[in-house]
């Protein structure tokens, strides 16, 4: 199986460890991972902010870059949702792009989907002796229907204690440019999310999107009482217990 | 200047979608595998309606008991006389030529006894369609106490099956699910606003 990693722009610059974790887990499971270096960004920020014309070169670039792979994996529910949910609509009216999207989009998976649905793995042999709480990010939850796939993987991690998060399915208030355009509302949503994280007393807040974790983490680090650290679940799956 | 009608219809014609895909009808035509009587009784009780069981033979006695403390019993024109045979107090009939006044219906202690057309088990709903045993809409609205008789063979499982049994949709139709209620204060249900504050339902078997 030819698996390509789509790292996503945020992870590429800010969270290379998450990408390394994905590679490390897949290689540990005996797979080879390819990283097509022509990849850039999926275009979500442009498209969701109304700059469709500016997003289209990225859409085309993604399709050209990832055509021909059996599976494309990304450690971001949001970017995968952009590809699977929005690309088909954005491609309408351009037959070449429509067929390219029809080929690539259904094979683009969030990391947990690849592991659980495609590779049939729920225990990746990880060890992480810490308390964690899981925030299901909106696009993974409602557009990809990730359900409890990331949780299934986390439950199999040695030493890990999962603590339930109150109102877990409520948005953290990030929403891309929403956090800037409606900063007040976004901050109010974030405050409630941070409060819920604090209430768990967990050492880590875990999610499938580093953009949401940047938001939550940015809020937590402002709160004197908050101690939870943000971490992408892929990094937990890569951990074998030697370091956290 | 063209009329509003002409203008609106022209705009709708100009802007409507060319066509729409067919409507998928794979929802359930009825709710399968339930005891409609038991489910109706359960749902009515959940709405805090009074629920009583009867047979054709015991119905007059059950009704007489339910209206025992009423000042006046009001009945629609076609309510079978034998239903009220055991009622001790006065019974006021509402006839098309001589309708009961709203002021009289609004007096304290008035109970209205009606039949119903159909009931929906899973939603605990009684449907009245102004047939002679149900009468005008105002009868089941203004009195403070409504006693409604539903025969077990009038109960359908789900909404589609029940609506399909209505004889004429152009008659005045009222769906009643429990006593009058509001959710306007902190989105919690409170019974008893403008309709009858008490709803008693007699679920009766024909034999």
């Amino acid at each position, binding site marked *: 199986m030819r698996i390509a990693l789509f790292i996503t722009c945020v992870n590429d*610059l*800010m969270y*290379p460890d998450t990408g390394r974790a994905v590679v490390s887990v897949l290689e540990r499971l005996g797979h080879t991972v390819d*990283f097509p270096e022509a*990849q850039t*960004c999926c275009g979500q920020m442009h*498209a969701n902010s109304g700059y*469709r014309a*500016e997003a289209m070169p*990225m859409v085309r670039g993604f399709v050209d870059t990832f055509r021909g792979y059996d599976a494309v994996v990304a450690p971001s529910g949001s970017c995968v949702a952009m590809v699977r949910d929005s690309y088909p609509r954005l491609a309408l009216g351009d037959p070449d792009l429509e067929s390219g999207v029809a080929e690539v989009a259904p094979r683009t998976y969030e990391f947990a989907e690849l592991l659980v649905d495609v590779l049939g793995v729920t225990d990746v042999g990880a060890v992480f002796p810490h308390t964690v709480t899981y925030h299901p990010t*909106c*696009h993974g*939850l409602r557009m990809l229907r990730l359900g409890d796939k990331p949780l299934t993987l986390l439950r199999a991690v040695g030493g890990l204690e999962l603590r339930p998060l109150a109102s877990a*399915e409520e*948005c953290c208030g990030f929403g891309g440019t*929403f*956090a*800037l355009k409606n900063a*007040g*509302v976004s*901050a*109010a949503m974030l405050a409630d999310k941070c409060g819920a994280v604090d209430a768990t007393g967990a050492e880590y807040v875990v999610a499938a999107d580093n953009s949401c974790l940047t*938001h939550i983490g*940015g809020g937590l*680090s*402002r709160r004197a009482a908050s101690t939870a650290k943000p971490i992408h679940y892929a990094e937990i799956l890569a951990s074998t217990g030697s370091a956290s | 200047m063209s009329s*509003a009608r002409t*203008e609106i219809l022209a705009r*709708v014609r100009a802007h*409507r*979608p060319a066509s*729409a895909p*067919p*409507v*998928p009808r*794979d*929802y*359930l035509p009825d709710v399968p595998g339930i005891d409609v009587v038991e489910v109706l009784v359960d749902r009515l009780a959940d709405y805090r309606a009074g629920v009583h069981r009867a047979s054709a033979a015991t119905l007059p006695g059950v009704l007489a008991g339910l209206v025992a403390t009423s000042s006046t019993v009001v009945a629609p024109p076609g309510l079978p006389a034998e239903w009220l045979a055991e009622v001790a107090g006065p019974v006021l009939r509402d006839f*098309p030529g001589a309708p009961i006044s709203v002021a009289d219906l609004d007096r304290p202690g008035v109970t209205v006894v009606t039949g119903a057309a159909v009931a929906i088990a899973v939603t605990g*709903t009684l449907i009245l369609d102004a047939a002679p045993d149900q009468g*005008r*809409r*105002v009868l089941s*609205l203004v009195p403070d106490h409504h006693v409604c008789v539903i025969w077990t063979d009038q109960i359908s499982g*789900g*909404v589609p099956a029940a*609506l399909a049994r209505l004889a004429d*949709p*152009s*008659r*005045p139709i*009222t769906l*009643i*699910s429990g006593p*009058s209620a*509001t959710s*306007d*204060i902190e*989105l919690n249900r409170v019974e008893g*606003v403008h309709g009858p504050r008490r709803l008693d339902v007699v679920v009766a078997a024909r034999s």
Partner: protein
Amino acid sequence: MNGTGNIVALRPFPDAARLELNDQQLRTNLRRATHTIRDKRLRVVGEVDDWEALRRAGAAIKDDVLARLPELLERFEESATRAGAVVHWARDAAEACEIVTRLVTGTAAREVVKVKSMATQEIGLNEALEAAGIEATETDLAELIVQLADDTPSHILVPAIHYNRSQIRDIFRSRMPGVTDGLTDDPPALAEAARRHLRAKFLSATVGISGANFAIAETGTLVVVESEGNGRMCLTLPETLISVVGIEKILPTFSELEVFLQLLPRSSTGERMNPYTSMWTGVTPGDGPRTTHIVLVDNGRTATLADEIGRQALRCIRCSACLNVCPVYERVGGHAYGSVYPGPIGAILSPQLTSSGANSTLPYASSLCGACFDACPVRINIPEVLVHLRQKGVDAKRGKPSAERAAFVSLSWIMRDRRRYAAALRAARRGSAPLRGRGRLRRLPWPASAWTDSRDVPLPPKQTFREWWAKR
């Protein structure tokens, strides 16, 4: 042609939201109420095995109606007229108000009783009647609370959702005739006070005004879905009934109600069925009003119909499930949206009905979390329409220079090319290197200050992913 009336925001959403966010009591009230209704809705929706099939059917029936709307409107008019109703048409809010005012003035009535109706809120009917010297009394409990408080509705279904029980008691004590200081904040006591207050009005009113949840083309039947029985009072007791109905409320046949009477109550109040639903067709001798009027209103609906993606907003059955699950609505309430249609549906409906003013800020009043689409009983893809409306707004201003556009254009130019993209990542990593010793950033200049006002920013690590990959 644009809609008019109470659907135009006067202030940009972020400004209006900021004011509401300062009201701690409001947020507490909204949080409690929306969380109560969320749980109830989930429970009763979970009981229905074919919920998704019903949602698909509901969406498709509404789409079919939009495709056949001219014929169905004509059919409705013909059926209703044959049944004894008088049908009127109104292009916008002003025309609708003018028609209703004329009809009321034509009777001897100087007072009317009203059933809660979004259409009459939308066109500003109460204000128009007042200007003509006619007193309109709202009879729905929440509408009454709002009316007594001289406030405006903040929710589609529960206009007084922003008040808690003790605030409602205070409003009744100070504004409701006949109420004494002994009134408690016990909800049954409050409901009883409203009952007593309105009873005399119901029994004496000669004109009732309503909206309609559904209008059946085949039979000319109107349907009103309600809870308290105030609707039944207004629809049954007066001699004259005037119903204001948006043209998108049409359903082809009576049997379509089998879908919507399952979807609407469970989605709105979280009940298996609402206490009362009334259906009437024209005039029935001896039962109910002797004269019935129906005012069919466009007010921006045909303009909305013209947009291929945006027209799905016309499927809306006003259940308000999207408001109740929306994290933005939960924090700011309905007034921040500046229209009688608040929340997610308002953010796509109001700008399409009016396409002017501060409504252009509404499509941005969402984090695109998608909870509204999941809850919508007629599958309106609200996030899709929000993004579409943002795009229309951006495209409409293509000619005008803006800092935001310049940023997006240059970012697109960088990101469409692997070399430019890799170079930009490298530059960002290097540029932040001198700051790295300080951990997270706490303050950035505008516009990023909107972020750092309440959140820190992490710095990029020493190596991008692609640099690591190239070296491994």
